[in-house]
């Protein structure tokens, strides 16, 4: 395992700037998760590190070595591709064994067999080892793809939305499993996802990408409670953060120049009785909690509430802010 440093990396495809001036340090044994909307340059970043794309400018070092001249094989990375990329003419077993059969590795037959079976069990595919890889479901293919990365001990694992096509239960299981393996191996892992729960639970640090730029990077806690701008704030939190104009719910504490107020559930206080300034539009029952759709003037908000809160659509309630996030006209955070 090794430390990976990206310094001033840029990559364009024709007119499109897929990655621009990206600085990122992934410490040895650290798990960094990249979050960003589609087209943000997440896949491109991983491909640049793997050497499948050449950067237009900037430096990439893996374990202290500048890898600019290295082909993918020389960089010793393991990659879980977004589109699985299994070898279609090989069985699951052979797919998993493929990286181990590299002559550079010189592993014995028994050692290969042991590692393949271990990994197959880890990703829950050991009952399909003899299947041809094209005869698998999408989720099974994805697990084989993850397994094919995990059989190796590379300098860094690069995973591009590896759990995206699994069902919720399996995803939760494998998420834990991956985190456990990463901890156990002390693996350096760069992980791309759209799923904020994955990001929050797996990451040592989360990096937020937008339009090829790294907007903010920090611990999950930090990104969640101290987003640098509205874009970052909107990426985390369920339900999504409410971004409302500053004059809708005046609290008298907004710094001068504030344009938008960001209010998550924990920033909103609901009071029943007393002077009402809001109305309940709709209540969604999620079981253990409720989503309240609230209207304040022309503004709609969504917040979580205890299911025993006695409200129904049409009710008038009092809504107040409690230490919300303030953003200026450019979307950046105001302090």
């Amino acid at each position, binding site marked *: 395992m090794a430390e990976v440093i990206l310094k001033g990396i840029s990559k364009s495809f024709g007119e499109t700037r897929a990655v621009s001036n990206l600085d990122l340090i992934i410490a040895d044994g650290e798990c960094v998760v990249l979050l960003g909307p589609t087209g943000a340059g997440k896949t491109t970043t991983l491909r640049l590190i793997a050497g*499948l794309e050449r950067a237009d400018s900037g430096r990439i070092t893996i374990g202290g070595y500048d890898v600019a001249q290295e082909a993918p*094989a020389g960089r010793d990375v393991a990659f879980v591709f977004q589109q699985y990329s299994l070898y279609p003419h090989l069985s699951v077993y052979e797919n998993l064994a*493929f990286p181990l059969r590299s002559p*550079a590795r010189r592993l014995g037959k028994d050692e290969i067999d042991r590692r393949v079976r271990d990994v197959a069990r880890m990703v829950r595919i050991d009952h399909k080892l003899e299947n041809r890889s094209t005869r698998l479901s999408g989720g099974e293919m994805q697990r084989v793809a993850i397994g094919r990365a995990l059989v190796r001990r590379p300098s860094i694992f690069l995973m591009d939305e590896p759990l995206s096509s699994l069902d919720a239960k399996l995803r939760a299981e494998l998420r834990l499993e991956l985190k456990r393996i990463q901890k156990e191996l002390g693996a350096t892992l760069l992980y791309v996802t759209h799923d904020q729960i994955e990001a929050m639970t797996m990451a040592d640090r989360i990096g937020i990408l937008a339009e090829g730029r790294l907007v903010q990077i920090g611990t999950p806690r930090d990104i969640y409670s101290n987003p640098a701008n509205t874009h970052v704030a909107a990426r985390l939190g369920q339900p999504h953060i409410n971004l409302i104009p500053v004059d809708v719910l005046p609290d008298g504490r907004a710094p001068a120049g504030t344009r938008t107020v960001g209010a998550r559930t924990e920033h909103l206080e609901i009071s029943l009785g007393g002077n009402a300034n809001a109305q309940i539009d709709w209540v969604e029952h999620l079981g253990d909690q409720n989503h309240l759709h609230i209207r304040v003037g022309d503004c709609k908000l969504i917040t979580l509430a205890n299911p025993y809160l006695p409200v129904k659509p049409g009710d008038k309630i009092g809504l107040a802010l409690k230490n919300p996030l303030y953003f200026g006209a450019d979307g950046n955070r105001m302090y």
Partner: protein
Amino acid sequence: MPKFRKETQVTSVTDTSSSILGKAAQATPAPLASRIRGISDRTMAWLFITPAIVLLLAINIFPLIWAVYLSFTNYRANRPNAPLENVGLSNYSRVLSDPNIWQAMQTTAHFVFWTIFLQTLIGFSLAYLIDRKFRGHAFWTTVILVPMMLSPAVVGNFWRFLYQPQIGLFNYIVSFLTGIPPSSFEMLGSVQLSPWAIIIVDTWMWTPYVMLICLAGLRSIPDYIYEAAEVDRASLWRQFWSITLPMALPFIMLAVLFRGIENFKMFDMVTLLTGGGPGSTTEVASITLKREAFESWRTGRASAFAIILFVAVFGLANIYVKALNKVKQR
């Protein structure tokens, strides 16, 4: 009865979404054909394929059956009015015990083997090189395809000229490369060289065809497979043997099948270049067959020979296609 029921239902519930759905459901199943002409889809399908079936019966199936019939008789096409006698299996036993025919079969096998071997080897190599997408690869692809587009008659005459010992370019180049005097050997006139002369021409003409099929195979391998292999640290050599070749194999096998069947009945090129000579060194099965049928006029025996060839090719091709399917399913 149920149909009637449905209609009343639809009219009774007017102006609701369910009635609209009901009308739509009624309108959709009527196929275009039956609405326009009152012909069912099945009839229409038959109408379309009948001409093809009639043609197939008239020029393929009927002659085949007729040939099977003739192969049991002593029929001679130059004496159509002679009395026809059923001779049983004697035509077959004569064909199978005729050393000339066995000689011709051997010559054919030799041709088929070497042409396929060379065409596959060279064709695949060319496809592999062209697939690298170097600058101007489209131009070179077109250039390589030219021989295939020529008429065999042109190619045959053209190569006869090239093979001329005194003035032919082929002999000149060989002599330039090896120092052997150009008029010291005759590609078409020598017993040792004439089979190879034909193999060379056939390879020259049909390698592009094999290349094209192999190229289709190589292009069908997605780039991301190679990317995965590269990340998995597979060398170029290993990528070739464990990805490129196995994934292109069904295509290669298909090319081999097409060329095999084609060359088994090779006739035009041999006739044009050597006419089967010198002696009978290049007399392939199809030439023997033609001689039997249209020079000796032993139509019955020629038919028997043709049936034997047909069964042999058909059987071999079937076994081969089974193998091909197995490879594809692997």
